[in-house]
């Protein structure tokens, strides 16, 4: 038997699927360009050290291999770290802010299933060298417009400020062991064990209650009032204020109908420092986009600049969007003399038509029969 295996979690895309993907990419590309973002391409794999400098230890999810000098290489698991490395190398002397976008395949060693593949496509933007409410608002607005532009219905973008959680966790009263355990329980979404664990700790009751509530709070600005300990922790208070400012700003940007405050959004990767967000549609059980502020990441590569951005999962968008209309009309040109047939084909192509040449030198009758079964085809026979 011939070997037709492909590695687990990878897939072939058929022409219709590619069409759909390209249509999405084209809409996003136009949108990103209209905001002044410029496309860059980075290598498909990087040194493991580079990935780990940015994203922390996520080795379990990486596809690793070695080069012949003994360096450990990793297929890129996402693009933001590569963009940060790129910026620190090439943009040092440029004016900031810089606006970059990418369209790239990324690789993660996950358990494959619907909407979760080991090679998948991300399109995203990074706004480098800008901080503050205006920059965050631009990026979140662009995320909302992106989902709107490609025709996702009923979507929501949930926003949070990662500083709220990080500051509370760093509250002097928690030991390193406690911190690690709480972070683990929140990341694994085990809220039952989380509230039990918090209950067992000898810390401020209000801090307990606030930490227990955070992963599940979801709504408008009023939800922040339920986190009573915020007023007792300077860092958390400042982060909450930042979140309020963004919320107000997004009102002014006219997109508040799509925005929800959700203190459970923490994002998995190490590098986030401020506002973070994720986009959801009721049509899919997984997120459609994710991003946020990462002010220390560029600094790790030697260029100390704030930054923010997001990435959309193109495969997931394709899953919930209807396909584009049927195939395009085309000409089928046949004949007995290659020169003449070829010339006619080129003529029609020059006018913008799609033209297939009959390379099998079929007779007019055979061609007519063929065309009858295909509605979108016009036949020409050159004698």
């Amino acid at each position, binding site marked *: 038997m011939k070997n037709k295996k492909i590695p687990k979690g990878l897939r072939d895309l058929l022409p219709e699927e590619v069409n759909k993907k390209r249509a999405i990419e084209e809409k996003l590309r136009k949108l990103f360009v209209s905001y002044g973002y410029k496309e860059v391409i980075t290598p498909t794999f990087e040194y493991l050290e580079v990935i780990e400098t940015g994203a922390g230890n996520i080795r379990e999810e990486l596809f690793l291999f070695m080069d012949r000098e003994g360096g450990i290489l990793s297929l890129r698991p996402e693009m933001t770290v590569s963009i940060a490395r790129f910026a620190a190398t090439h943009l040092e002397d440029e004016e900031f802010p810089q606006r970059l976008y990418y369209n790239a395949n990324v690789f993660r060693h996950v358990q494959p299933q619907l909407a979760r593949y080991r090679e998948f496509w991300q399109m995203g933007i990074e706004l480098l060298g800008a901080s503050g409410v205006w920059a965050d608002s631009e990026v979140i607005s662009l995320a909302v417009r992106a989902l709107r532009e490609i025709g996702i219905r*009923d979507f929501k973008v*949930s926003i949070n400020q990662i500083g709220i959680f990080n500051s509370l966790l760093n509250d002097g009263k928690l030991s390193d062991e406690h911190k690690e355990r709480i972070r683990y329980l929140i990341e694994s*979404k085990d809220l039952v064990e989380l509230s039990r664990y918090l209950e067992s700790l000898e810390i401020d009751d209000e801090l307990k209650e606030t930490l227990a509530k955070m992963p*599940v709070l979801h709504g408008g600005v009023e939800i922040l009032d339920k986190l009573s300990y915020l007023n007792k922790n300077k860092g958390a208070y400042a982060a909450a204020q930042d979140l309020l400012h963004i919320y107000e700003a997004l009102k002014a940007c006219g997109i508040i109908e799509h925005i929800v405050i*959700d203190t459970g959004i923490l994002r998995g990767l190490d590098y986030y420092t401020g506002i973070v967000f994720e986009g959801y549609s*009721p049509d899919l*059980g997984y*997120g459609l986009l994710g991003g946020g502020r990462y002010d220390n990441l560029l600094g790790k590569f030697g260029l100390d600049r704030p930054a923010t951005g997001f990435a959309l999962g193109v495969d997931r968008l394709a899953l919930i969007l209807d396909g584009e209309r049927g195939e395009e009309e085309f000409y089928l040109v046949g004949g007995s003399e290659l020169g003449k047939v070829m010339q006619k084909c080129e003529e029609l192509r020059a006018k913008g038509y799609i033209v297939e040449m009959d390379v099998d030198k079929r007779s007019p009758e055979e061609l007519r029969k063929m065309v009858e079964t295909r509605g979108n085809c016009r036949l020409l026979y050159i004698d």
Partner: protein
Amino acid sequence: MNQDYLTIALSKGTLLKPTVKLLKEAGMPITGIDEESRAMVFTFEEEGIKYIMCRPTDVPTYVEQGAADLGIVGKDVIVEQGKDVYELLDLEYGYCRFVVAVPKEKENIKLKELNYKRAATKFPVVAENFFRSRGLQVEIIKLHGNVELAPIMGIADMIVDIVSTGRTLKENNLVELVKIMDSTTRLICNRVSYRTKHEKIQPLLKVLKDITKKGGSN
């Protein structure tokens, strides 16, 4: 995912009865749901509720993939599968515990003496993680049921299984050596539903929380 309905995956088997009782107490529609029924989907149009009947081990899958918004299933199943779902509430019924059990003749054996031995189990992930966390290397033999048989037939030195009363162990001449963890029934939720259907899930969550706080539906 259907936006108009709140879809809940229920575990068939021993959990079904207390689950239906709890749902009834919470004011949810339950007409016609019982073990005997062959229907796999129950739709209550007026209330906007849909139940799907699953094998317990399939509940986390339906919820993770968003085919169901919520699921009711034992913690034993959740830890074994490690799916990406929210665990919202301990419903406190269906108690059981994961244990390491050995034949009665070896009841005084120390855990570390089980290094490099063989353990039969339906829960290879739980078993592997437990032994590894204790620094032990144990060969895991995955079976699909009646694991008590494995030591009797000599293909394993011990078992890792869930027990509630311990009767089955006794009947098969086994004794509990170590408890790994407790398990009760949990309410789990899809990570997107939690956000997109918040206004439907939140009130239900509150009612269920109040009932369990009162001492449960038992």
